[in-house]
């Protein structure tokens, strides 16, 4: 199945980004395809390479980057939500790109299921 993923919450405060990542890994392991992961609202905070969690914690941002690199998954950050929060091209982590809400709608159209994470 072709899946779209929407992440609506930032990292570390909320479980949503962790669960979305774990869902993506589990789906890939089952042979499903991830069409795109779209980061919206506070979810855009998953995309900054300035993130530095403590050594003994998981690195949520790098984990997404690695997922993108290893599985060729498109990680798209909502431009309006990103700019409001100071997330710009120059601080994006590897594998992320900034684009418009049209990319979310297109994910809904192209994917068999759009799975939403966050309140």
């Amino acid at each position, binding site marked *: 199945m072709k899946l779209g993923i929407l992440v609506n919450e930032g990292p570390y405060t909320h479980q949503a980004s962790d669960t979305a990542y774990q869902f993506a890994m589990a789906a890939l392991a089952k042979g499903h395809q991830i069409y795109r992961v779209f980061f919206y609202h506070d979810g855009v905070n998953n995309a900054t390479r300035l993130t530095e969690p403590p050594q003994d914690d998981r690195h949520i941002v790098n984990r997404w980057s690695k997922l993108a690199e290893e599985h060729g998954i498109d990680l798209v950050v909502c431009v309006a939500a990103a700019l409001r929060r100071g997330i710009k091209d120059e601080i994006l982590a590897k594998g992320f790109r900034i684009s418009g*809400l049209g990319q979310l709608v297109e994910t809904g*159209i192209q994917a068999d299921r759009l799975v*939403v994470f966050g309140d």
Partner: protein
Amino acid sequence: MQEETSGTIKKFMFVNRRAPYGTVYALEALEVALISAAFDQDISMVFLDDGVYELVKGQQTKAIDVKNFSPAYRALEGYDIEKLYVDADSLAARGLTEDNLLVPAQVLSAAQMAELMDQQDVVIGF
């Protein structure tokens, strides 16, 4: 505005559950609905829980220094977004009736709402 849709038309539902001010979600739902309309999709907007307040007439936001975007709901028709649904129990629980709403909307029971949601291809909550 027309966008490339590759001809596919899906049923998109945007579920509004929060008061219009205090969080950004109501405004974002309008944004996504308008962009979906540009992709020529079949769009429904649902208002339930505190989301029913988004459609209440006479919103005044000057004191909180935030733009009153409620006129935008009346403009949705111009973008072919005409399917607006309000949850009957949510209205009643807040002492509201259809007369309090600033735009025509269909009032549905929880069972009718569930049936409508079941028919959708894409459901996004705000």
